[in-house]
């Protein structure tokens, strides 16, 4: 399965991935209109300390703790892709507690959100397309 991988050697900590992620999931057609004055809830975030930085998003684990711990069955794994059913999520945040990567976070309305590889946006992952230095790649490994 193709996944999003990061290469910290080329990450510039420009944070563009976060903006492209938020834009892709906003459903808007123009980034300026979609994101101006809006508090961002990206599903990818750049971790940085001193000279090292890299973007973190859902790893789509082989043995996903979030799916195992979900009390309502909102998180499911299909063909390797872990997705969330917004209608079933009750916002208990158990998945947030168990995810070792910190890749799940609450959306604006309290329902959990996570990277679903832009499958629901009908495009290749936008963070990958928006990365100016190929520090985030979408590939089979």
């Amino acid at each position: 399965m193709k996944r999003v991988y990061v290469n910290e050697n080329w990450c510039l900590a420009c944070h563009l991935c976060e903006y492209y992620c938020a834009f892709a999931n906003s459903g808007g057609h123009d980034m300026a209109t979609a994101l101006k004055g809006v508090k961002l809830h990206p599903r990818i975030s750049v971790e940085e300390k001193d000279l090292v930085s890299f973007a973190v998003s859902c790893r789509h684990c082989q043995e996903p703790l979030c799916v195992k711990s979900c009390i309502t069955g909102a998180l499911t794994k299909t063909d390797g892709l872990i997705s969330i059913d917004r209608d079933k999520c009750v916002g208990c945040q158990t998945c947030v507690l168990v995810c070792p990567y910190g890749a799940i976070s609450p959306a604006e309305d309290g329902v959990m959100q996570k990277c679903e590889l832009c499958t629901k946006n009908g495009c290749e992952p936008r963070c990958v397309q928006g990365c100016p230095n190929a520090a985030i790649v979408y590939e089979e490994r």
Partner: protein
Amino acid sequence: MPINFLCPEYEVVRDYDRCIACRVCERQCANNVHSLIKESGKMFADSSKCVVCHRCVSLCPTRALKIVKSDHSFRQNANWSAKAITEIYKQADSGGVLLSSMGNPEAYPNYFDRLLINASQVTNPSIDPLREPMETSVFLGKKPTELVRDENGRLQNNLAPQLHLNVPVMFSAMSYGSISYNAHESLARAAEALGIYYNTGEGGLHEDFYKYGRNTIVQVASGRFGVHKAFLESGAAIEIKMGQGAKPGIGGHLPGAKIVGDVSRTRMIPEGGDAISPAPHHDIYSIEDLRQLVYSLKEATEYKKPVIVKIAAVHNVSAIASGIARSGADIIAIDGFRGGTGAAPTRIRDNVGIPIELALASVDKRLRDEGIRDEVSLVCAGSIRSSADVVKAVALGADAVYIGTAALLALGCHLCRNCQSGKCNWGIATQDSQLTKRLNPDIGCKRLINLVSAWDHEIKEMMGGMGINSIEALRGNRLMLRGIGMTEKELEILGVRHAGE
């Protein structure tokens, strides 16, 4: 605080309707132009620090930025231009020599732009390069002037060592130190993939790049930095740098700030010390002395590699080239006055040297007149901007061209001409690890391959139009060129006729 006499030449213009204050511009500017004003939540740009490198403009996700020439002006004066006035302010402020980077930007005549290429009509057929074979590969080096046979009448191989190029384009000398590790890796990998050569410049060869040796020209310049036996043996050819088009007659100076870590080890000099290349080679004061170095290098590498001598295009270039051709060199590289540099005194860059077109034509003619053109190959450098320039250079007598600035542009350079600051926002002319990582060699290498492949296609198209199917048949073929808007004298030096003749 003293009065700052300098007003920003360019202004950063932000469309606040589109700016989402994502701060990418702020994070990407090594010159600290952009900042977020906490109270208003709006971005602010200090245009006085802007070097016009366009990094922020290129990365702005909402296209909210542009850089424009300021309309702020001095009182108009045809004699005292704004440039002349501000340069005086700068020198009155610093007391120092003005420094600049990249090639001469002044409006001197460009002869490539006054040359037009021929095409076939009716009486001779043009060739479609997509349907018929078309040869753009060349061999550089001394060509045999006679056949030699052994006692059995069999042909003896008397061919001197040659460089084989798939495209008559090479990446010119840019040292590791003046450009980054990632820029060097991009050039090396692209040269290997394209079947051409890149040049180490004067700074030695990083140990990681010895594996690209078959596509590397190693340079020996006046400072002899990084030169040792393994270095000489690693390359496909050795270049002796006598001069550089951007700064003929003077040496080089890589500031100590750039001599860090691997750069210091590769150059074999202490960290933090300035790398000063003397103006002349102190062991070369004549053609005879040059011959000694040429043969020392050949001896050291067992006569397996061609030796290139690179000179700047100066007033007596054809006589100098004639001497070099007799010194035992296999290839002469001539660098015109528009050639780039990582740092040069502004006055030298902008006022010394001559145009490469005139130098090349006059050297080619002189060598042919003296019957020694086959003794050497000619490489033309100094602002080759397009495949049309390559075709014109070949028709004026070049065997191949060097591209430096064009290659850097492919890597992202925006010709902001501030290499000397060491704060290249595109990760090219810097050794700051936070900036060098901005150039991913996977991307850089691909872009260089794209550029040279595109030029190769265009060269074949132009050759096909002329009815020529081998670049060798175009070399020195000045009937394929016509001049436009030139004087008799200019046409005479270039050896071309005027359009319509």
